[in-house]
């Protein structure tokens, strides 16, 4: 009998894992079980080019159904509601059974929701999947004043897109800076300046006490007693790993599914990849959980190799980007554990980068510039981080010196 490989979750990690398994294993059955009735698609454009009508649904799919068919990868739209790890079976609520020899969990992450004490929960919109993006796109057509709760990547990207659609946008952030969870304040302040220059209102350091609805207008009451009137509310306040299905099982959970550097979980033949996995990173010698495009792709590929028996360690340097207006923000490595910051450049037209060093070793960098201007140096930084490189900070400081000279081959 053929080996059954089941991939639970139908996002980016899933499709890359499936194709990587097939590359290394021409024989096994591979089946992706997805809650969404859509082939795996790219999410980054949802908050940007999709809202701006520069990309449509067909532009988002990673691959056509022909590619999956040619590689003999099954895709099924089904909701699994019980897992029996001991007997290696998954069940739907109708007790349809899927048996596996190896299981990859790539269920991703889900939006944290605002909890409001009145019945307005359905009036708050979120953007994570294509359906939600379509809904927002349609609903905002006849709205003018739009408030975004949460000044993280998703909130700010939506704010940038809606501003370009001539909407009057207000962003409310609880922290004293934008993108505070991971982006250094110096860069966050430059992003904030750009939003303000484009006409967006940015409100920091404020909590929402209450939201009232009067006719079709919402009144958002802040903790300084100020009131924001708005026609439409979108929240982007973070996400949590999608692990509900596993809460009463033996699978070890710890901010997601605890996974080693080979994408293996605490249960034999069960793997996890992408947003849902809190994986051991051999370079940082601790577990980290990442929610990014590059990670979903590369972690999926690594899981695919390991499932197919090609033992492969995952030690990819974190990298992520955000596009807002004509700016491209990039971050690589670890930017919150350092003893020295080195600044390169002071004009976003040419790119501004902050490098984070510890014991003279480069640990990470975060940069902002008009499109294209920081990518090369951020990429070089990733390569330097891979090898825990001690760098000459005079070279980092000096914009006239090219950083590719620092890469040791």
């Amino acid at each position, binding site marked *: 009998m053929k080996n059954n490989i089941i991939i639970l979750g139908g996002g980016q990690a899933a499709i890359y894992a499936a194709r990587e398994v097939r590359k290394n294993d021409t024989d096994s059955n591979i089946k992706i079980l997805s809650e969404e009735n859509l082939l795996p698609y790219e999410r980054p454009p949802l908050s940007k080019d999709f809202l701006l009508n520069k990309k449509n649904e067909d532009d988002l799919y990673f691959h056509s159904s022909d590619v999956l068919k040619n590689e003999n990868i099954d895709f099924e739209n089904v909701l699994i509601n019980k897992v029996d790890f001991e007997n290696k079976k998954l069940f739907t609520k109708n007790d349809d059974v899927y048996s596996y020899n190896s299981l990859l969990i790539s269920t991703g992450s889900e939006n944290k929701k605002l909890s409001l004490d009145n019945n307005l929960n359905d009036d708050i919109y979120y953007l994570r999947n294509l359906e939600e993006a379509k809904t927002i796109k349609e609903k905002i057509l006849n709205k003018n004043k739009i408030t975004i709760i949460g000044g993280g990547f998703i909130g700010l990207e939506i704010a940038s897109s809606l501003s370009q659609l001539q909407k009057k946008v207000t962003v409310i952030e609880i922290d004293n800076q934008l993108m505070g969870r991971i982006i250094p304040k110096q860069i966050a302040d430059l992003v904030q300046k750009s939003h303000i220059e484009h006409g967006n209102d940015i409100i920091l350091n404020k909590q929402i006490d209450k939201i009232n609805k009067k006719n079709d207008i919402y009144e958002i009451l802040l903790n300084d007693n100020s009131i924001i009137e708005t026609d439409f509310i979108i929240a982007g306040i973070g996400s949590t790993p999608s692990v509900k299905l596993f809460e009463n099982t033996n699978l070890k959970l710890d901010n997601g599914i605890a996974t080693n550097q080979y994408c293996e979980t605490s249960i034999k033949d069960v793997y996890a990849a992408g947003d849902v996995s809190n994986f051991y990173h051999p370079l940082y010698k601790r577990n980290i959980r990442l929610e990014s495009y590059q990670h979903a792709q590369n972690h999926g590929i690594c899981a695919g190799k390991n499932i197919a028996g090609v033992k492969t360690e995952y030690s990819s340097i974190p990298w992520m980007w955000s596009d807002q207006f004509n700016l491209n923000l990039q971050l690589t490595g670890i930017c919150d554990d350092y003893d020295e910051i080195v600044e390169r450049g002071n004009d976003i037209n040419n790119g501004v980068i902050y490098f984070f060093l510890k014991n003279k070793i480069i640990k990470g960098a975060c940069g902002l510039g008009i*499109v*294209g201007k*920081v*990518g090369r140096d951020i990429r070089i930084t990733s390569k330097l981080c891979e090898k825990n490189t001690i760098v000459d900070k005079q070279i980092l400081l000096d914009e006239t010196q090219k950083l*590719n000279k620092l890469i040791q081959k």
Partner: protein
Amino acid sequence: MSEENWIEVGSTDSIEEEDLIRFDHQDKTFCVYRLTDGFYATDGMCTHEAVHLEDGLVMDDEIECPMHQGIFNIKSGEALSPPACEDLKTYPVKVDNDKIFIKID
């Protein structure tokens, strides 16, 4: 140059090894590369989103887009790593008297 469509880009020493320059001609834009074994040319814009590859990183035979890290083989134009999936157009290059020429069709 007697043949048509060979356009002079500049002198060979205008590009460092494992690096590139941008070259604009009429309404088109290109990247011209110097690799260890010679000179190559591709379209200037990434096939994924409208960003010029002039600010990208050249490593071995590959150019990496500075915006989203799509990677292309410089010699064949092949898209090697997502988000890039459409290949990059390449152009013939020749060197004559220390000058680089590309053939634009």
